[in-house]
């Protein structure tokens, strides 16, 4: 076992002046489960692309099974038993499972004609390798994310595979599906197949991998056995910063609630929900995916108006029948899926920031006041420390954390009283997560009432002053965050 399967030695790589990798070393043994972690832009995807032959390194070399290469082609990588499973799984949603499984090997054999019988045999053999039960004639587009992933894995195993690289494999999976995936990974390990897991999720790193490598700004910062790693060290290696847990303590609570729900209900998704939020307070609402938490958030913002009960803003009953009414009452909403619901990804950062206050940035004739606009943009880019060389760049050029800041900036520009955030740090790396938490706590101190809806319990405990737990559409617990813990909350959730 001492012999390494793959060794990358002193790898350098730069792109148009940006040093993506600096003297990075990496090693993996047969049957090893290794986690490669790092924040966005740390160079982890560059390293993977060098290993799989997509990029060639500027300097350094690689060793496969003892043979040394200064660079390799994607074909050589596959011949050496390296397979990459990308985040989108490289499937064809419009074709059947059978074709999805058989194409790669048919093309590798340079076949020009299609033999449907042979394709079926190849596909049957492929799914049998991981005991994956699936209808070979089903369209892949109709399968769940986990099933698509299984297809990608069975396909990867068809080539005498020694190393499978998985790029953030658990992102869109449910807890049960993750468990399933881990079981399969353990089985592959038994067969001597090495797995390189790319992730920035701490709990995954701990649970499945034996060894880890962490990159930061293109440099190797730590590598070793996972058993020697703890949460604090992990976040330090990832970000280079020391975080102290800052439990949020509300100051300047307003006397009367700024927002109140009295016995609200909507179409069986939630019933008889009551709570109050004061200025200066952060209220956490948590629960399982089907608990009604998201529907409640949508109701507060008027996307799915309530059917029973009432909302009160600053003590006055308000019928929030649409998002316009909600905005008119100074309520803002940061959606769960910020990419599809909260941002115009292809538009500029600047436009995304000012979009919801555009009415106030005009001159008398209704013409956009350019000076006012750029002043406003500069203000928010600085205040929220959005990392961009130019606010005129498209939003999609930013990392998840920075995109989330833009969604925040968009709402803060509107002088809100209440801000509802649904999963504020989903898909955001540790450093940005920490920064966003800081911003939220600061906002509360400045007198905003915040509602955070999240199933990330450490996040809820750290940032909220009060926690409501929802289950099957009802509030089953209302606790002070300082007086409870994850275990208690979980017992109410399940």
């Amino acid at each position, binding site marked *: 076992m001492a012999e390494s399967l793959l060794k990358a030695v002193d790898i350098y790589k730069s792109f148009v002046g940006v040093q993506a990798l600096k003297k990075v070393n990496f090693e993996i043994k047969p049957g090893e489960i290794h986690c490669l972690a790092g924040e966005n832009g740390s160079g982890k995807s560059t390293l993977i692309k060098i290993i799989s032959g997509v990029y060639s390194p500027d300097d350094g070399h690689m060793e496969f099974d003892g043979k040394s290469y200064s660079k390799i082609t994607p074909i050589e990588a596959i011949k050496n038993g390296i397979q990459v499973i*990308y985040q*989108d799984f*490289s*499937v*064809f*949603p*419009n*074709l059947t499972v059978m*074709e999805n499984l058989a*194409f*790669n090997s*048919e*093309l*590798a054999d340079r*076949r*020009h*004609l*299609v033999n449907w019988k042979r394709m079926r045999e190849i596909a049957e053999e492929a799914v049998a390798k991981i005991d994956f039960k699936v209808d070979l004639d089903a369209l892949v587009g*109709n399968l*769940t994310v986990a099933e698509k992933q299984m297809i990608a894995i069975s396909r990867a195993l068809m080539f005498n595979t020694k190393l499978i690289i998985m790029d953030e494999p658990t992102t869109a999976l*449910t807890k*049960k599906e993750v468990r399933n995936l881990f079981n399969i990974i353990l089985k592959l390990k038994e067969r001597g197949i090495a797995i390189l897991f790319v992730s920035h999720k701490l709990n995954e790193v701990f649970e499945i991998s034996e060894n880890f490598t962490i990159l930061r700004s293109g440099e190797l910062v730590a590598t070793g056995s996972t058993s020697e790693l703890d949460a604090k060290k992990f976040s330090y290696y990832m970000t280079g910063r020391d975080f102290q847990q800052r439990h949020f303590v509300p100051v300047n609570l307003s006397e009367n609630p700024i927002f109140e729900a009295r016995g609200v209900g909507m179409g069986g998704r939630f019933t008889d929900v009551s709570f109050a939020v004061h200025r200066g307070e952060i209220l956490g609402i948590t629960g399982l*995916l*089907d608990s009604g938490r998201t529907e409640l958030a949508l109701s507060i913002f008027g996307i799915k108006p309530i059917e029973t009960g009432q909302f009160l803003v600053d003590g006055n009953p308000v019928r929030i029948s649409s998002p316009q009414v909600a905005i008119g009452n100074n309520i803002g909403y940061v959606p769960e899926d910020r990419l599809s619901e909260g941002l115009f990804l292809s538009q500029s950062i600047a436009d995304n920031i000012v979009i919801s206050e555009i009415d106030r940035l005009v001159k008398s004739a209704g013409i956009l006041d350019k000076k006012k606009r750029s002043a406003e943009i500069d203000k928010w880019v600085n205040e929220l420390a959005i990392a961009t060389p130019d606010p005129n760049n498209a939003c999609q050029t930013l990392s998840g954390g920075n995109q989330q800041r833009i969604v925040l900036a968009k709402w803060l520009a509107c002088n809100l009283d209440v801000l509802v955030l649904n999963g504020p740090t989903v898909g955001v790396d540790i450093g940005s997560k920490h920064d966003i938490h800081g911003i939220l706590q600061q906002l509360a101190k400045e007198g905003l009432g915040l509602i955070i809806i999240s199933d990330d319990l450490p996040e809820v405990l750290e940032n909220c002053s009060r926690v409501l737990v929802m289950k099957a559409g009802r509030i089953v617990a209302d606790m002070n965050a300082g007086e409870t813990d994850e275990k208690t909350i979980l017992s109410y959730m399940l």
Partner: protein
Amino acid sequence: MEMKTQTLLKKLSRRNEPYIFLVLLALCLLIEVRSGQFFSSNNLVDIASALIVPGLFAIGAFMVIVSGGIDVSFPALASLSVYATTKYLLDTNYQGGVWVAIVMALAIGAVLGAFNGLFIGYFKLPALIVTLGSSSVFKGIMQGALNSKQLTTIPVGMREWGTSSLFIAKNPVSGLTSRMPVASLAFVIVLALVFLMLRYTMFGRGIYAIGGSEASAHRAGFGVVKTKFIMYIMVGMIASLAGVIRVCMMQQAHPTNMLGMEMNIIAGVVLGGTAITGGRGTLLGCMLGTLLIVIVENSLILLGVPTSWKSVFTGALIIIGTGVSAYQVIRMNSTRKIKAKIQEVV
């Protein structure tokens, strides 16, 4: 067994072809009831011969749409290659058979198709923009360099081929006759070849794969650029063949006569269940959709609908037809979401 028929029915209900077939049947029966003339032998032959040119165009448009592209240049492309061919053969006073005309038009079509393929495949430009542009370029060459005017006579080989028939159908009641042109064989052959290519070659499956996900196709090892390039050459050749047949059947070469056909052709393809976003569709559906458009265009007169209202009917058909398939997609997506939700909870 019962289970099997049930799943088969379920599968069929998700596809477009059965619906379009039913609509087609209903329309035919309606026309038959109103006029008593639809299922007469000469009318059927008329419709079949009217299908030849749109059918060939539709095969090309179908391939492009399945690959995730769109082609609006094929009428201009066909016009240019057939016009250039006819003019050259007239100028050289060519007296031989039609084969030279067909081969020459196919060659020009291949070059023009390669022009589209070069920009779409190798330079990775959006297909709509490229074909809008090339459509203009082709028209411009025709009007500028070739100084196009209507050619009222065509070379003898083309004329003879255009008037030769496989068989002639005679309506026993009215005494009207209709010819089935020999050119219909060319259509059937192309249809069969393209069907076999799409189903039994990796090149054909590659067209579907690219339409599903270009990135995945590239990673799987398909030659994405090459596949597109060759496909646009084929489409250029098929369109040019349609152009030759059109000119032969009409017995004259009109430079602008085919222009503007692209919208109805694309509509027919989409009506037949081909996803405009690429990757999904069958040649059978594509032909049914095209047939529906052809029947509406040719037989509404039998229903007593004035020809001036024809475009209204075609338009309504397109909206309803494509609406049904769009609705299907929405329904499928929502059941999928519910399924995913259920799994989440369990």
